[in-house]
């Protein structure tokens, strides 16, 4: 095709010695045509970002392209001299990164960082650069461009920062924009806005976009064509519609099947009437502690709910909605300002720490970060057995129980004497679940337990949680930002916004007939609505 602007041909990039495989990128070929968006999609470690960074020569020094070509404007960029690459970067191939907070220099004003685009390529006078920067900030939809111009990055929200990054990328009307997970760090509504902004800009400017993502929903929203990567290789590529609807490769099919569908499964049975936990008018405010910034941030405002025996209650919301604070307050890891937490007829909030200590067994938590939630200096067996030992169980009994729990969550009992660092993210999350179960709680509070995991691993961990809940007749509070996950695992859902529960009800009802404006917006913002499979949780209970 004549209108191909960028052509990656048989690219291979070597990993440093001692990595799990020899090539990070293995014989990858990909074309990008004028005005087209191509997504590279894959799980972590698939080599998708390395492929993108090879194009602009921004690989970290230990990664070396060893074969192939990157053709752009008739030149092989892999062989281009440094000065030539510098003229191309920014001007003809621009980039947008995942984390706009760290990608912008914290000590320089946003406007100055945009003006640098012109300065780097010797364009315009200072006055013209300034005017263009303001124009660009207007074009990317910042409400007050002049203010954004003189703002420091930390003074803007995540979405606004990403708009600044996009303005910067657009500055010199590049032929190609490479976007590396540009919406991953953003809330779902913000993500929707950024995706539509990128679509609009592509139409107005005819820029080709190479878009890196792990999210098939995003692929469905934005891509014309898609390439699926796995362990350094492109396993399947083609027009988005074909790949998503009729995947040819088993790997692609598995990945797509692991994406939770937005339509909830039919309710399993009649809900139990026994209430195991009630929150009554829970309130908490974070007080601004710094000298100037004395703004008090309300994190929970009059939050009330009941948790029934055997149900999973989803707490969904965007960042800052107070959902994680709620989980921590229930566990008394953070202090409530006011309210009652009733379990077994007792108000936990009113108990002294000493009186509460034995009650801690009733509720246990599963955490988000599989790396930070296990003490790296203790063996897995100890991590699981410590809790029961503290609550008075004999050490030998506790360790024997830990071993049982390990096989219960699907890990080899020989893991007992190993350290957390020897396990993968999904395995660590299983250890964290075993630790929570060790105290034989009635209630599990799971705070984003699958958010840090790849989609295929996520499906397995969700399956485990669901199975355990049924077998042990646990009640679960499931905190998540991901409505797809909530749709598949929760019996009821409470939607939180700015510290309040704005809507609560059976999952199917909330998803099919949302009452509040906010819930509707939240649901509408989810990319790739029709995508995903109902997750067959019940079929496979752990042995």
């Amino acid at each position, binding site marked *: 095709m004549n209108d191909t602007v960028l052509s990656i041909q048989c690219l291979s990039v070597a990993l440093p010695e001692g990595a799990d495989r020899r090539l990070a990128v293995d014989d990858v070929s990909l074309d990008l045509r004028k005005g087209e968006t191509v997504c590279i999609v894959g799980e972590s470690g698939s080599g998708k970002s390395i492929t993108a960074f090879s194009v*602009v020569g*921004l690989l970290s020094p230990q990664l070396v392209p060893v074969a192939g070509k990157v053709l752009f404007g008739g030149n092989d960029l892999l062989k281009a001299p440094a000065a030539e690459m*510098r*003229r*191309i*970067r*920014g*001007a003809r191939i*621009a*980039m947008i*990164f995942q*984390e706009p907070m*760290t*990608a*912008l*220099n*914290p*000590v*320089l004003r946003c406007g100055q*960082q945009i003006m*640098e*685009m012109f*300065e*780097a*390529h010797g364009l315009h006078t200072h006055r013209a650069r300034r005017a263009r920067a303001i124009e660009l900030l207007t074009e990317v939809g910042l409400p007050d461009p002049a203010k954004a111009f003189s703002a*420091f990055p*930390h*003074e803007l929200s995540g979405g606004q920062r990403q708009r600044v*990054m996009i303005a*910067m990328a657009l500055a010199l009307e590049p032929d190609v924009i490479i976007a590396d997970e540009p919406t991953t760090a953003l809330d779902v509504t913000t993500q929707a806005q950024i995706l539509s902004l990128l679509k609009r800009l592509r139409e107005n400017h005819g820029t080709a976009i190479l878009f890196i993502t792990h999210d098939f929903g995003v692929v469905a929203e934005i891509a014309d064509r898609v390439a699926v990567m796995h362990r350094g290789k492109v396993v399947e590529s083609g027009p988005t519609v074909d790949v998503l609807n009729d995947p040819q490769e088993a790997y692609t099919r598995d990945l797509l099947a692991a994406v939770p569908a937005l339509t909830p499964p039919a309710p399993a049975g009649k809900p139990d009437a026994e209430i195991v936990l009630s929150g009554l008018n829970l309130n908490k405010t974070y007080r601004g502690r*710094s*000298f*100037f*910034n004395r703004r008090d941030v309300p994190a929970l405002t009059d939050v009330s709910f009941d948790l029934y025996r055997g149900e999973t209650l989803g707490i969904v919301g965007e960042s800052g909605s107070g959902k994680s604070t709620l989980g921590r307050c229930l566990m008394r890891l953070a202090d409530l300002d006011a309210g009652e937490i009733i379990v077994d007829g007792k108000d936990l909030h009113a108990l002294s720490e000493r009186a509460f200590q034995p009650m801690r067994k009733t509720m246990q938590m599963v955490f988000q970060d599989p790396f930070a939630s296990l003490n790296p200096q203790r063996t897995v067996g100890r991590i699981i057995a410590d809790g029961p030992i503290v609550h008075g169980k004999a050490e030998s009994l506790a360790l024997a129980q830990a071993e049982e729990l390990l096989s219960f969550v699907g890990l080899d009992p020989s893991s007992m004497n190993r350290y957390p660092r020897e396990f993968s993210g999904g395995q660590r999350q299983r250890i964290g679940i075993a630790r929570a179960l060790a105290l034989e709680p009635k209630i599990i509070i799971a705070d984003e337990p699958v958010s840090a995991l790849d989609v295929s691993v996520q499906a397995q961990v969700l399956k485990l949680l669901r199975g355990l809940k049924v077998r042990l007749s646990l009640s679960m509070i499931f905190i998540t930002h991901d409505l797809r996950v909530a749709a598949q695992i929760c019996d009821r859902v409470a939607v939180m916004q700015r510290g309040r529960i704005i809507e609560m009800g059976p999952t199917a009802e909330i998803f099919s007939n949302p009452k509040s404006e906010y819930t509707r917006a939240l649901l509408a913002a989810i990319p790739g609505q029709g995508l995903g499979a109902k997750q067959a949780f019940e079929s496979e209970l752990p042995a």
Partner: protein
Amino acid sequence: MTSFIIKRLASAVLTILVVSALTFSLAFLAGDPAIAIAGKDSSAADIARVREYYGFDRPVVIQYGEWLAKALTGDFGRSFHYQQSVADMLASRLPITFGLGVAAIIFALAIAVPLGVAAAAKPGGLIDRFALGLSVLGQAMPTFWLALLLVVLFGLTLRWLPISGNATWQHFVMPTIALGTFALPALLRITRAGTLDALRSDYVRTARAKGLGAGKVLFRHALRNVMIPLVSISAVQLGALLAGSIVIEQIFALQGIGALSYDATLRADLPVVQAITLIVAVFYVLLTLVADIVNAILDPRIRESW
């Protein structure tokens, strides 16, 4: 910003009060000042008279309060040994020590910053290894031994530089090098580590993705972020140099407050010791305060957190 400074000053004043109270009581334990003044061979009656005359027989707290009240007006009393106003003695000696400290920190920065940046630009390279060697060597070097070696080499063997006194600028060359070497390792390490961090950061990657040249990436994006820890460490190091110049002033016979504090401690000259401790504490607290303010100017996030 003003209210931040007020708050910081309040805690600084409290720190200084505690330090001065501690040294006052310590110095008070140092032995009977009356004996020191009257002389070891004086009769008991003479010592008692001296004690009464200076008011040493009253409770410590009252004496401290009195001393503090006077110190606030700039009156640090009279030296027991020299029979001179302590304030006058300090005024004549402070410039020497302060000048030496500033010269030493400039010497150290002049080496540490370019070397640290060059080392970080190519980790593991020749310059990096040299910088690492220099910082390890500097850290392990006994300052007073280095001073003695300098004296032997430049003073006695080559006869290039004068070895004692503070008459000309040449007298300050060897003290500056010796003291500067003491400050060098910390500055070198922080420059190298900071530059390395900055060069690996996302915002430097962004700057490179813009097509900015290496120079601008380094100076505008990386170094500005390196300066923030560097300013803090420099302030702490300068504070340490003022206190650490005791040995150096002794060796080179510089008449600064370091040498004075040595004499005063030997002779249990309480007013002088107290005044010097107070001055050094005030300097330290002021320096860290200035560093915080400079950093707030450099980094908008620090400004925000005030």
